[in-house]
């Protein structure tokens, strides 16, 4: 009697256990419910959601293709997406990479992660800002500019050049972001590629000697200049425009505009098709859509005030006109080739 009741209890417990495992498996299946939907496109997007989402939603609405987006964060400085693409190389999950700068796109090209697609929408983009074989195309740029605090800097004696970072009169008053990451890394690599390793190393040693603030990112440079902790610093146009739109007491200087100076670095957004991505045809349609002039117009009118690479009628006042400024003459492939070495050298100066 006791034995049979024990046996029944055991059986019912086993049944209970089985049903619990079934529940657990169902839960796992539910969690894994992101099933592959064929009429979709996966985009890894380094441009922030607030600017890119309306454009991507527009595409979704017009094409009927579902978009799945992975965004990056300021903390990971485009690193998240590029590392993710590299880690996924054996089984790519991404179709399109929308980068908010150029050097990491070329890095992916060099690591054989991109597939050429000369989009018809890119025909009028200046050749300097697109790959001749169609591996990537640029649009809607940012510029590296000086942001300065109007209450700290004398309006008759403003900084005007990258070289001012190493000048004694600005000791402890200027700031840049870590030159190992993001657009500042590209900017630094440009100096290495254009002026040679020795000159660039001497310059950055002098920058360090001059107690230039090496901050966490371009947004931090903007914030510390706004707060008056630093009088001026190098940042990107989108960061500076945000501060001006918020009514902060800061101004923008286009650096190195004299005849004997290097000019200003312009860094475009870039878009590229990922090699062997799961939805290539949809990816191509998305690239065609993003590269239309309308995207540049939307991004120019946004808070980030991105600079159109093509002529744009009625350009907003706060958006730079590329025809009216001296641009740095840069070979982006050479800069990208230099990026790793320059970053390693700069790491030894700045990460101690």
């Amino acid at each position: 009697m006791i034995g049979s009741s024990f046996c029944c209890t055991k059986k019912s417990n086993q049944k209970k256990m089985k049903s619990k495992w079934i529940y657990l498996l169902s839960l796992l299946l539910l969690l894994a419910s992101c099933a592959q939907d064929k009429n979709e496109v996966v985009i890894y997007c380094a441009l922030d959601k607030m600017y890119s989402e309306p454009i991507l939603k527009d595409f979704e609405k017009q094409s009927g293709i579902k978009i799945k987006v992975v965004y990056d964060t300021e903390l990971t400085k485009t690193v998240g997406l590029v590392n993710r693409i590299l880690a996924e190389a054996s089984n790519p999950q991404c179709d399109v990479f929308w980068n908010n700068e150029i050097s990491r796109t070329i890095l992916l090209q060099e690591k054989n992660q991109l597939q050429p697609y000369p989009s018809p929408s890119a025909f009028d983009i200046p050749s300097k800002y697109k790959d001749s074989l169609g591996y990537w195309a640029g649009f809607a740029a940012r510029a590296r500019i000086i942001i300065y605090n109007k209450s700290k800097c004398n309006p008759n004696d403003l900084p005007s050049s990258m070289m001012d970072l190493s000048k004694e009169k600005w000791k402890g008053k200027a700031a840049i972001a870590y030159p190992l990451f993001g657009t500042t890394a590209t900017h630094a690599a440009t100096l290495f590629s254009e002026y040679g390793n020795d000159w660039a190393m001497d310059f950055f040693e002098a920058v360090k000697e001059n107690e230039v603030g090496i901050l966490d990112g371009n947004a931090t440079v903007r914030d510390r200049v706004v707060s008056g902790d630093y009088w001026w610093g190098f940042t990107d146009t989108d960061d500076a425009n945000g501060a001006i739109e918020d009514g902060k007491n800061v101004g923008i200087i286009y650096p190195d505009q004299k005849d004997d100076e290097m000019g200003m670095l312009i860094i475009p957004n870039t878009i590229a098709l990922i090699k062997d991505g799961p939805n290539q045809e949809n990816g191509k349609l998305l690239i065609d859509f993003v590269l239309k002039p309308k995207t540049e117009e939307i991004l120019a009118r946004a808070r980030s005030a991105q600079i159109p690479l093509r002529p744009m009628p009625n350009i907003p006042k706060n958006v730079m006109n590329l025809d009216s400024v001296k641009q740095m003459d840069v070979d982006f492939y050479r800069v990208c080739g230099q990026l790793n070495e320059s970053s390693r050298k700069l790491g030894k100066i700045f990460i101690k």
Partner: protein
Amino acid sequence: MHSQRISKFEIAIIFLLLLLVVAPILAVFLDLINPLIRQDISKDSFLTETRIYKLFAKSLYLSFAVLISCTIIAFPIAWLFSKYSFPFKGIFATLTVVPLFIPPYISAISWMYAFDSQGWLGFPDSFNFISGFGGNLLVFSFWLFPLMFLFFHNALLIGKPYYETVSLYRRFWPGIRFKMTLMVKYGVIPGMILTFVLVFVNFSVPGVLQLNVYPTEIFAQFGAFYDQEQAALLSLPNLIIAIFLAVFISKHFHRQSRFGLLNHLPGFQTVSGFKLIAIYTFFIAFLLAVIGIPILSLVLRTESFSTFIQAIADTYMQWINSLLFALAGTLVICLMAFLLVWHVRHKPGLQILSMIILLLPMFVSGGLYAIGLIQVWNQSFLGGFVYGSSLMVILSYFRFMPIAFFLILIGISKLPKRFEEIAYLSTGNKLAVISKIVLPQIKNSVFGALSITFIFCFAELDTVVLTYPPGMETIPVRIFALLHYGTHQTVAALCLWQVIIIIAIVLPLSGLINQKLLK
């Protein structure tokens, strides 16, 4: 009740853990073997650079400094709660744990908001300590002292019957030594190890507060050079520390398992008069500093109520994603942790292996662990079942399993084994023993493990930024994106929401714990 032979179920658990937790690390580090054999790891490897050693030493220094300061803060508070009874004790105990609910990067941002030159507590530049070692020490200490407090408090309560005996000793030093030994035995060491590792591998706080540490270099290798081999190579010392600590702690628990105490809570001395005023003054001042300053900073930066509301309206999907991921992750992790604790308790031979399995992912940088997860699970034959699904996020949370494991282990280690044996003899059912005998006895530990694991999962960024499925962004990812593109008001509002939501979910739980524990 338990034979010393390892059962199929136990093998299955260990295999599952090896697959889920260790395989990603192996995937990353196995990539190192070929280059090491060929000796073609970059010439700039860490072996040749003194600055790398300096960074390593700086990280160790910061971790130990935080450990000491957390001990200095946590021990007197834990002692106070374990010895005295006073009105509103439960409320004060709950509030003491609240700083742990504020994710460290949010805390760092809020202290920056308070102390920068335009902040509401703005100091002149020459006195501003927040950017640098001092700021890091402060933020980490205020974040982690509640964790130490929980472990100290637990140890003091459990060892209390012994202390009462020891107080009969006339001589001072033997008494103190005995107390310290007992405290160590009853779980202070896991608290110290967790505190140490949470500082040692953290990159976000030093990033915000301008301090170069060892994780900065690992991140630079990974982030600036896309050199996973160098990043893995730099993480090797972390793994060695993890293995050393795992062996150390498993020996510690092996010794401890000889003890078995019931949840014996002796009486508290009632406080009144001047002592009570002193205690209230201390708590109000202290809690204002550790909770008031960061929260007030965020409130002041948010500026308007409409921004506060708009911030959550714009990000409701990310909140839902984060909550679902964190809740599912917490349940899975705590369940796994409990199963592991249960088997470690009865098979001490499994301890060292389990500890190593658990501690390794915590010591590896989040980014590197994520790369390992991608390498293991992004397989075409699996389709989108694991990689590209929510399961990847939950796998990313496995880094936090030691927290749940230690809290449950400490809870269960004070339960005499004979209780289980008697119960098993009368029911013959392990499940009934666990649900009717063991869980009710250790529910405080289980609640604690659930709460604290949830906090860590909810705020996780380093790994999740690389593993979240397309279209299912989490709130920490959003906050960090907005740090660059958004306004300070929005960032502050979202940080404030994150704190409120964590508190709203966890506080009732910890209130319950305190009610049970401190009455």
